[in-house]
Every structure is written in structure tokens, then in C-alpha cells.
């Protein structure tokens, strides 16, 4: 490289650039935090309500059974099984349909095919999971996914 561009200039670009863009990122994060209440359905999450407790329990069950290990949720997770961010809408805005689907998975699977495990959830647990998925489907995701199939 030409001697006009020295090592100390390169060093200054590294430190200066890093600090500047970290601060810019923090500023954008701050702005996003202020915009989120309009988009993320947090009113539903109030832990003093039955709905809020149900969604929290549903998310806990979602995590404790590693659902993201096969499915995507808002496009993130594994790509082995369908997107679930919009499953509530795909199942006709019907929580009962979601609960029935999870409840009647065959324990030994389906020969030759992918199959969801049988988790033996109680009805309360199924309800909490369905409520969590309904909440997820109501988040403002800028129009994603492109269609009902996720």
C-alpha cells in the first residue's frame, strides 16, 4: 500500500469507525424501543391478566420443548417443519384446530415421513401454546410472510 496511507490512519479508522457505529446502533436501538409498543402487542402480555399469564406459559412450553428445533417462528429457527408465526391464521383463526393438531400426533411417528413428536400436553398447556401462537401472529411483521403458507 502507498505510504500516504499509514498504519496509524488505519488504526484511527478502526477505533473511530467502531465507536461511531456502535453509538449509531445504540441510537437506532433506542428509537426502535420507542416504536415497538405500537407493533409488538405488549398489551396482551400484562402478567396481571389471565391472557398475559397464558402467553407467558405458552412461550415457556415453546422453549422447553425446543419447538424452534424444527419450526421457524417469524422466519427464525429450523427449516424442517412449517412456519408457525402465522399458523393461527393458516388454521382459520382457530385455536382449537392448533390444539387438536398437536394433541393427535402419533407417538411412533409416520412411516417414512417427518412427523411431530407426541408431547403429551395437558389441555391447559395446549391452550397456553395456542394462545402464544395467536399472539405471535398478531405482531406487526411488515407484511411477512408473503402468503398464508408461511
Amino acid at each position, binding site marked *: 500500500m502507498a505510504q500516504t496511507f499509514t498504519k496509524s490512519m488505519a488504526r484511527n479508522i478502526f477505533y473511530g469507525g467502531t465507536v461511531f*457505529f456502535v453509538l449509531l446502533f445504540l441510537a437506532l436501538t433506542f428509537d426502535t424501543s420507542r416504536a415497538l409498543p405500537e407493533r409488538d402487542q405488549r398489551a396482551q402480555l400484562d402478567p396481571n391478566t389471565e391472557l398475559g399469564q397464558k402467553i407467558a406459559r405458552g412461550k415457556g412450553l415453546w422453549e422447553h420443548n425446543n419447538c424452534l428445533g424444527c419450526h421457524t*417462528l417469524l422466519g427464525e429457527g429450523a427449516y424442517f417443519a412449517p412456519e408457525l408465526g402465522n399458523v393461527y391464521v393458516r388454521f382459520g383463526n382457530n385455536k382449537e384446530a392448533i390444539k387438536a393438531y398437536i394433541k393427535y400426533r402419533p407417538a411412533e411417528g409416520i412411516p417414512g415421513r417427518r412427523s411431530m413428536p407426541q408431547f403429551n400436553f395437558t389441555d391447559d398447556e395446549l391452550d397456553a401454546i395456542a394462545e402464544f401462537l395467536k399472539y405471535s401472529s398478531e405482531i406487526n411483521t411488515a407484511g411477512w410472510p408473503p402468503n398464508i403458507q408461511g
Partner: protein
Amino acid sequence: MKYKSQGVAKLYFTAAIALFLVQVLFGLILGLQYVVGDFLFPEIPFNVARMVHTNTLIVWLLMGFMGATYYLVPEEAERELYAPWLAIAMFWIFLVAAGLTVAGYLLVPYATLAELTRNELLPTMGREFLEQPTITKIGIVIVVLAFLFNVGMTILKGRKTVVSLILLIGLVGLAVLFLFAFYNPTNLVLDKFYWWWVVHLWVEGVWELIMASILAFVLIKTTGVDREVVEKWLYVIVALALITGIIGTGHHYYWIGTPEYWQWWGSIFSALEPIPFFMMTVFAFNMVNRRRRDHPNKAAVLWALGCAVLAFLGAGVWGFLHTLSPVNFYTHGTQITAAHGHLAFYGAYVLINITIISYAWPLMHGREANSMRAQVWEMWSFWLMSVAMVFITLFLTGAGILQVYLQRFTDVPQQFMVVQEKLALFYWLRELAGVVFLIGLVVYVVSFFVAARDAKRPELSAEPRPASA
């Protein structure tokens, strides 16, 4: 090897390669489950195999980074490691924690593991790549803190070079950002927003600092190019990595509930993310072309050049392929993502680890390089694994394009599972390429045994090279 304590890296490198083997075996299980849906079901369901695949990857890459650091830092600082015993102790803690965690994944249902480890006290489990029980995560924090203390003290008391400084900044960043793994609110948008502070700011942020500094170290050693030149390149590369990569986080904030302006920030900055990777490629070739010596370890130079090229292809080109928000609208969460993930991790982080292992291993065993015969094994391994991974990526890309077309980019979108069955051909070809990858990895492991055997026969040494070679 100039300092005795550099030898602790041997433990880390050995465990890294062993875990790499486990990772690839589970990758083959996953690949087969994509086409034979009930393979190993319900004993090892897909999600369990995937956790083993991704978590062993993360652990072995971290082991590799730590080994690389323990090897590199004493040489740069020109003194022994501050506390070699601490490095050894932390290795065993890390290995046992990782082993217990993987055993937990395989032996009990995940929900049981969550209960046994009292996840409800501080829920952190069940999120992609952060599936480890909270107690394991705490263990990782302790190991990393002890590691940083050890390395930091060594640098503080010794010579401070740009290489070790950039490496240390990368490692401190790694530790600090991991703390966001402990933040898991019920609010899904906030959960996802800060989850990316671990995942994105690791692999498209601070890990690039670690990678670039290890690459710089190996190039200084193998090419003999003036340190001043290398350090200037290093500063420019890591500057560009962070300038583009930090705001580039925005490419994960398109569709998770965050404001639409992230589509602009994310698209523009992540479109620039290939630049630092391209510069690493130019840098590596430039240094090798301007080399002042012919290092007898040709294999290490091959791994280094391959690393720079495939990191650019995987992270740079395949990343750019789906990073613009209008494109990502269709590709988000499809096999395109999987294609990019495979080549990016292999090119950048698998290969940088193998580069330093290949360079350091002979030196830690009292020879500058392995016998030419062992190096040829290594070179075969490089080509087998790299070509196989390129094909895995191409087949997944083919699957991804078809998936996007049939399921999303059409007036008559079809169901996920209907589309998956139509992709079977691509998945079978990917599995085949995966088998070739495993063969390449076995060849790599064999090269160590060939090297050890040949080391007993001085006439096979690659070291005394004629000047004309």
C-alpha cells in the same frame, strides 16, 4: 514453539477436532431425516440431532479459538502464559460441561432437561443456538472469564502487538455479547431483537476480529512479510468488518416486528459486509505472493488461502444473495438461509481453526512442518471437504430457489410439506455431498497419524528445502 506454555493448545485442538467429527456425524443424520422423515424417530428427533449439530459446532469453534489464542498470545507477547494451569483446568471444565450438555440432549427429552436444570429460575433455553441449560451458559461465562484473565495478563505483562490486541478486542466482545443470552423476555420481539446481539454480533462482528487476527498471525509466520504491512491490512479489515457488520444487524430486523426503516439500514450496510471478506482474500494472496520465505508447511498456507476464499464466497457472496430486504422477503427462513449458513461457517470459522491447527500442530511437536506425505493427506482433506461443502451449498441453494418459487413467489402457493417432498432430489444430493465431506474429515484425522509416524523418520522431513523450491 518458542514457549512451553503454548503447548496447552494441544488439548483444545484435539477436543475441537473430536467435536467436529461428532458435529458432522449428526449433520449426516439430519440430512437423512430430511428425506427419510422417520429415521431414528422418535429416539433422536430432528430437533435433538440439530441441537447436537449446532452446539458441538459452536463449542468446537470456541475451543479452537481458545487453543489458537493460547498458542498465539505467548509468542506475540514474548513470554510464557500467565497461568498455564488455569488454561488446563478451564479446558477440562469446558469439555465436561459440553459433554454433559450433549449427553443431556441425547439421553432425556429436552423438557426434562429444562426441568432438571431448573430453567424456570432463569429461563434461557429453547432458543436457536442458545439451547444449552442455563447452568451450562453460566459455566461458559466462567470459563471465558478465566480465559480472558489469563490471556489479558499475559498480554499486559508482555509485548503488545496489533495482532494480539485485535484478537483480545474480539474475545472481550465475544464474552460481553454472550451476556445477552441471559435476557429472555416474554415479549417475542424483544427476545428476538437481543438474541441477535449474541448471534449476529458474534459471527458478523467480533468473530471476524478473531478470524482476521489469527489469519494475520499465520501469514506473518509463513510468509515472513513485514509485520508493519500485515498490521495495516489487519486494521483496515477489522475496521470494515465492524463498520459494515454492526448496523448490518439490521438485516435480521426486517420481519420480526421491528420498524420498517431497518429494511434500509440492514440492506445498505449488509450489502457492504462482503467487502472486509473480499479484503481478507486479497490480503492473504497478496502476502503469499510477496513472501520472503518458503515455509515448509505448505498445507497451512493452503488452508489459509482456502479460508480467505471460501469465507468470501460463503459469508460474502452467499450472504449478499439474500440480504437485500426485497429479496429476503421471499428467502427469509428457507433453505437459502441454510445454504449460506453452511458455507459461511465452513469458510470463515472452520477453516480459520484448521489453518491455525495445521500451522501450530507440527511446531508443538518439535518440527517446523509435517512430512510432505502427511501434508498431501491434509491437502486431500482440504479439497474433499471444501468441494463437498461447495456442493452442499449449491444443492441447498437449488432446493431453496425451488422452495421460494413453489411456496412463496407464485400465485398458487403450495403447502410447506408438499413443497418439501418436491425438493427430495436436492436433499439426497446434499446428503451425498455430506458423505464426501465426512470422508474429507476422516482423511484430515488420518493426516495426524501419518505425520506422527513420519516424524520418527528424519529422511521424510519436509523441512530442509532447497532455495530454488
